[in-house]
């Protein structure tokens, strides 16, 4: 293996290009064409960078690390205390950021096409949401983690509120109010960790904990764990904040929810991994995480089953499947973590398919309630095909990607002799099918009003070409990962191994 470099060129670009884009498009405000060109260009740029970038560290501001003998070094091969803020770009970061960048591109194209002209601030918020997600997954620093989570939750509120409807603003306000709690919780946790170790860098802090006797200061660690877990719960929308988060998912435009759910999965993964690395050895820590996850899965899916609006159903299924991701992570074994990470990737992809289909329903102007719909399949057979295949992927039916990750999680749970968890995962996957298919049937398949589609009306039910392409791409990825999961697993195994065996390495 090559020696890891500490000034990887891609990391700052992945953060700064979207920030600059956001600044510029916010200034342009309603110059629609310019915004469209700039934002699509920037989205393509970050996608390309995330794909071609090698792996390594970036020490922001270029301060060295201090060796044990007091000398300074700029190499990361030997352990040393970092003076700068450290980001790490590895295989896990690559696949998650690449997928999110792809979605960013889709979201930007759709937003700049389907929204009213003054979308400058909106596109700015979209780009900054991407920044917060990318920063959270790359950072190896508690302080930066906190700021990225703060920024992220504020952006969620903005993205939701920008649709301007009363219920969206209410949802955004509620979410901001409670996410302030999560932010301050993370800050307390950060303060305690800083107090007990003296290092904000996660690697350094873990190293300090392992090499120094804490002298019975375990209460501090537990309180720090509790607050960090609280932030994890809020950022990812786990129980007991699932009503807030699902409200958010439902109130944003579906294309914005595509990015929102990707962001919250990335936060779940990032903070979850930090929790495991830092507190994985604490007794009861993983048990707490596991119980939260299982409860989230169950409650999320039960809520999804009783909804009568496709957007609400999707919102609760996203919440429930967040629990699926965290179940894998909090099992804490190699296999469990791989399953959790893979589930995160898959989840982001198949949920995007369903959400884009939901967006198309809004275009058709018939709403998303399952009561007043029906017969869309006849008018738009392609959309019906996409939504049904997306449903298959989400419910873990082979040959789609959901199947593979759920299988790994179930196996991991059985290996840990937790058949109850495996059973719950199975139940969630079946109930997902029921909940989704109920909505899909009554909106798409159930015969609607029985008059033939007129020529003038037929145009209204055509999927725009861009969206058609996006849906096909996502479905193709879902299918390929389902048939050949090694493609994604190759990116995930290294991180999972590190978390289990060498937790101090990012």
């Amino acid at each position, binding site marked *: 293996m090559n020696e890891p*470099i500490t*000034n990887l*060129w891609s*990391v*700052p670009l992945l953060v*700064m290009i979207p*920030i*600059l884009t956001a600044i510029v498009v*916010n*200034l342009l*405000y*309603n110059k629609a064409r310019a915004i469209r060109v700039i934002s699509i260009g920037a989205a393509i740029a970050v996608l390309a960078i995330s794909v071609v970038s090698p792996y390594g560290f*970036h020490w*922001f*501001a*270029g*301060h*060295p690390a201090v060796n044990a003998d007091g000398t300074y070094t*700029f190499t990361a091969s030997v352990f040393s*205390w*970092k*003076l*700068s*803020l450290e980001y790490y770009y590895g295989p896990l970061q690559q696949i998650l950021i690449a997928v999110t960048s792809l979605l960013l591109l889709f979201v930007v194209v759709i*937003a700049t096409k*389907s*929204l*009213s002209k003054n979308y400058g*601030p*909106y596109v*700015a918020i979209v780009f900054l949401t991407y920044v917060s997600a990318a*920063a959270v997954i790359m950072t190896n620093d508690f*302080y930066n983690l906190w*700021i990225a989570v703060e*920024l992220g939750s*504020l*952006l969620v*509120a*903005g993205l939701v*509120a*920008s*649709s*301007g*409807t*009363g219920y969206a603003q209410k949802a*955004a306000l509620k979410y901001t109010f409670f996410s302030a709690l999560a932010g301050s919780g993370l800050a*307390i946790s950060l303060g*305690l960790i*800083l107090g*007990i*170790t*003296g290092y904000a*860098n996660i690697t350094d802090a873990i190293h300090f904990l392992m090499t120094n006797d804490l002298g*019975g*200061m375990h209460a501090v660690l537990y*309180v*720090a764990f509790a607050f960090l877990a609280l932030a994890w719960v809020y950022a990812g929308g786990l129980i007991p904040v699932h009503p807030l988060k699902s409200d958010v998912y439902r109130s944003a*435009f579906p294309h914005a929810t595509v990015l929102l759910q990707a962001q919250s999965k990335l936060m779940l993964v990032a903070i979850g991994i930090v929790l495991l690395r830092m507190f994985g050895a604490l007794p009861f820590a993983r048990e707490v995480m596991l119980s939260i996850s299982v409860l989230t899965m169950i409650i999320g899916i039960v809520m999804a089953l009783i909804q009568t609006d496709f957007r609400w159903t999707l919102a609760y299924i996203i919440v429930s499947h967040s629990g699926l991701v965290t179940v894998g992570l909090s099992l804490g074994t190699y296999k469990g973590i791989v399953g959790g990470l893979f589930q995160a990737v898959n989840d982001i992809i198949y949920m995007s398919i369903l959400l884009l289909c939901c967006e198309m329903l809004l275009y058709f*102007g018939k*709403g998303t309630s399952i009561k007043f719909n029906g017969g869309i399949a006849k008018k738009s057979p392609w959309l019906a095909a996409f939504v049904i295949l997306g449903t298959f992927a989400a419910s873990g039916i082979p040959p789609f990607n959901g199947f593979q990750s759920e299988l790994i999680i179930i196996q991991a749970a059985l290996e840990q002799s937790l058949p109850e968890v495996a059973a719950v995962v199975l139940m969630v996957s079946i109930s997902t099918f029921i909940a989704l298919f109920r909505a899909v049937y009554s909106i798409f398949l159930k015969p609607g009003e029985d008059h033939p589609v007129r020529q003038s009306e037929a145009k209204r039910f055509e999927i725009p070409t861009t969206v058609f392409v996006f849906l096909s791409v996502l479905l193709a990825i879902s299918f390929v990962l389902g048939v050949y999961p090694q493609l994604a697993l190759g990116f995930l195994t290294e991180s999972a191994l590190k978390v289990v065996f060498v937790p101090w390495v990012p």
Partner: protein
Amino acid sequence: MEIKELRGIKGIVAAVALLIIFFGVFSSFLQLEGNVARGISEEYNKLAYRIAPNNLASWVYDYRGIDTLLETGVIYVGAVVSVLVLGRGLVRLNVPEEEDIVKVSGMDLKTETMPVLLKYFALPVVILLIAYGLLVVLEAPTSGGGGFQCGVIVSSAYLLSVIIYGKKSPLNMRKKALVAFGTFGWGLYVLMGLPGYLVTGYWQYNVGADLWSWVSTFPGAVPDALKAVFGEPFMLALQLKEGISYATSGILPIINIGESFNVIGAICLIFFAFIYGWSDSEEGASE
């Protein structure tokens, strides 16, 4: 949520949860007392005089500069989102929708009752306040202060002006100018990372101060010209007890200026939107 809702079982749960949190935090603070590990801060302190005489500025804007960059982003986003909720850039799908967009109109300010004496003195005070804000930001590397504080001081001058004179206020920030201030501020901060990135590969490496190019493992090199451009204008002769030491804060003053304009733009924009409301058609206050 009303107080009524907190009675009964909900209130008890809330109280118990608060008690648990309080005892948890309190007991951990007790355990930490006297046991706080100094960690990396010792190293920072040792290096303190090498960049800016004001140690805090070196920490906030140099060692942890990216944190502050994102923190700046929090303020920027706070403004964008608040003003968005009030009407700037509310978007809708190009399809018939069921619900209307919520719009907010401006405030009703009554300033007739303000004493004439206040009106006479307020304008000089506003001007001096802005000058004070500029002083605070420009002295950031040498004494307490910085971009955040400057932004808050200038926006308080804005608020003062509006409170005394009403909507036709002498400090008449136009909304385009405010958005441009924010853009200029955060943009300047972000772009200050570029020189270091281009010559050393480290984003926001302080090319003016150039602390580390003597370390053998340091990749890249800072050209003398670049070092002079960013370093020389801010060079100070520090009279330490060991003798006179020359130190420059490099890009820190520029970053601070960016920061201050970001905060001025952000906070004044929020005030603006609350006071005047927002509509895309008209431009600004009394234009």
